[in-house]
């Protein structure tokens, strides 16, 4: 019998080589004979199993591994089969805990070792420690799940397509906007969901991406289930494989109608915010005429025969009614969500109307108004309500900045292509560190419940929409100056004349 054990024993050099190979293999190796007794184990096995050679070699497999493991893996049967058929066995996973060590996961395989007669002489058991790899796999899976959830719950449209433009998946936002479920559109060309007029553009963008060109954002629309278009702004990025080939494209879109609604809401809440501040003032302005009306009526009730009273009281009632009605009219003009209409406006007239509306607020704050108008100022095309809103915000801010008594200067003048409107106050001013933030939405130094911090951001938006600019100059303790520039000839003129 010419078995391996004899070879190893007989040939010193060969034995050395084998031992070298065995001990450098990063797997645990056991060699067993037909009685399932271990005849050889490598160093890796001794380290991992915390066993010694003396209680390993010559022992049976079922002594070396715990009973449950032997039963669970059916390893003894498998080894017997290898002896019988001479075929390697791919084994599988097994969890093995050496005494005093945490359990580790191994991937084991069985292979026959033949003698020169092609008979199975021994079977080799190879065990690879896959614990780390397995944990890593678990982590990857969890990360993937997490990412999927992020994609699913994103407010943006997220679509992935293959290089042919066929949909791989889209997220919940697209389902909501279009009414099509992701599973139903899978494999369909994305083009089916775009307007026909956009298809050329879209195809050339995809072509560009496949040629690894950078593409910029694109505004178009997507079709919903009813065939209606929903405005979307798109951003594209490609997914590449390890060789750098584009294997897919991720498209992120933002529903512009939602943004438009949000903007409208923002404008509206700004109105409500400044409304809240002036509500008290308005109450006073309306309750005064009401008090006059009511007391005149009470007097008439008692002394209806008094000629003098009969002459005077109705007149007073009517005057007071007119006054109250006028206040309500102004309030409505301001508060109504009016359409965006552009007309030729006289800036001075808008400022004066705003001041009139705020008269009460100004007198409560003991704010004196100092007007310095340039009467050569031309009329410009603008939205009256919006400008009124801007002026009101700036005056309210100035009022808030004036703690005791103060002056608000309002100046207008013409420069080359612009009209300039300057609001200046001698209030508490703005510290340098805040200057860059005052136009941010929700930035406020007002106490909770008083300011929403929307006033200036809305004003900024409105002036920008008119093609103008708004700037601030201020120092802590030295008052503030807001300068508005509005173009004399602006984009609205063209639209008006169409």
């Amino acid at each position: 019998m010419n078995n391996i054990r004899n070879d190893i024993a007989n040939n010193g050099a060969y034995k050395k080589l084998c031992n070298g190979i065995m001990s450098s293999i990063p797997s645990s190796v056991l060699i067993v004979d037909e009685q399932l007794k271990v005849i050889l184990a490598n160093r890796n096995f001794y380290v991992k199993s915390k066993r010694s050679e003396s209680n390993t070699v010559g022992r049976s497999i079922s002594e070396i591994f715990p009973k449950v493991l032997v039963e669970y893996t059916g390893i003894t049967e498998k080894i017997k089969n290898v002896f019988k058929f001479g075929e390697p066995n791919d084994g599988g996973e097994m969890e093995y805990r050496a005494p005093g060590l945490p359990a580790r996961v191994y991937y084991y395989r069985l292979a026959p070792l033949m003698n020169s007669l092609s008979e199975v002489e021994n079977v080799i058991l190879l065990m690879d420690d896959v614990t780390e790899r397995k944990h890593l796999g678990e982590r990857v899976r969890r990360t993937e799940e997490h990412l999927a959830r992020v994609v699913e719950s994103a407010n943006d449209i997220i679509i992935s397509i293959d290089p042919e433009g066929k949909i791989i998946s889209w997220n919940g936002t697209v389902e909501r906007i279009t009414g099509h479920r992701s599973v139903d559109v899978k494999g369909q060309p994305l083009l089916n969901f775009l307007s026909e007029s956009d298809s050329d553009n879209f195809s050339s963008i995809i072509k560009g991406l496949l040629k690894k060109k950078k593409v910029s954002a694109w505004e178009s629309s997507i079709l919903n289930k009813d065939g209606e278009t929903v405005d979307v702004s798109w951003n594209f990025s490609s997914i590449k494989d390890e060789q750098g080939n584009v294997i897919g494209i991720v498209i992120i879109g933002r529903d512009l109608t939602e943004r438009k609604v949000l903007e409208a809401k923002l404008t509206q809440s700004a109105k409500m915010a400044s409304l809240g501040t002036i509500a008290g003032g308005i109450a006073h302005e309306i309750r005064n005429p009401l008090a006059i009306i009511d007391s005149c009526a009470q007097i008439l009730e008692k002394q209806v025969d008094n000629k003098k009273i009969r002459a005077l009281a109705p007149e007073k009632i009517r005057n007071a009614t007119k006054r109250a009605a006028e206040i309500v009219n102004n309030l409505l003009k301001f508060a109504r969500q009016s359409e965006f209409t552009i007309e030729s406006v006289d800036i001075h007239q808008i400022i004066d109307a705003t001041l009139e509306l705020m008269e009460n607020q100004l007198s409560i704050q003991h704010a004196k108004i100092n007007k310095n108008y340039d009467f050569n100022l031309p009329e410009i095309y603008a939205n009256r309500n919006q400008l009124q809103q801007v002026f009101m915000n700036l005056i309210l801010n100035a009022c808030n900045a004036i703690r005791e008594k103060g002056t608000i200067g309002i100046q207008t003048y013409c420069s080359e292509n612009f009209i300039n409107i300057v609001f200046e106050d001698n209030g508490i001013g703005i510290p340098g560190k805040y200057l860059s933030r005052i136009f941010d939405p929700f930035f406020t130094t007002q106490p909770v419940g008083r300011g929403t911090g929307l006033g200036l951001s809305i004003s900024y938006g409105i002036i920008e929409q008119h093609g103008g600019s708004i700037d601030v100059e201020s120092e802590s303790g030295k008052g503030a100056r807001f300068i508005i520039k509005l173009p004399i000839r602006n984009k609205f003129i063209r639209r008006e004349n169409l």
Partner: protein
Amino acid sequence: MTDYKKRIKVLAVDDEYDLCWAFETRFKKEIFDIVTVRNGEAAIEMLKKNKYPIIILDSKLPGIDGFEAAKIIKIIDPDTYIIIFTGYYDREDKEIQEGLKSGLFYDFLCKPFEFDDVKRMIKKVIKENISKNS
């Protein structure tokens, strides 16, 4: 202080001409005399010359405002009863509640108002004064 029993002087302070007219017209034939002025400064001048046990005071006045005027009035004559008269505040508002608690204001009157309520308030003050002074 038997003066009070005869004819009490009531001072109404409001910047609305028509409201002043209404007070004077409605309370012409009462057991008290009504006098009106249009701002806080004028009210303080009047107080230096005469005693006004009851003052109906508008909260929002041109020049020194109602709250400030009330404090000055209380310094000149701590016995004066001030009825704060306002269209700007509600009774629940902090400013009013604080004034009522500290005794700066005797009562609160919101615009629009009932002359009968005003009358009741004035009569109550007279009654309390009589019992206090007899």
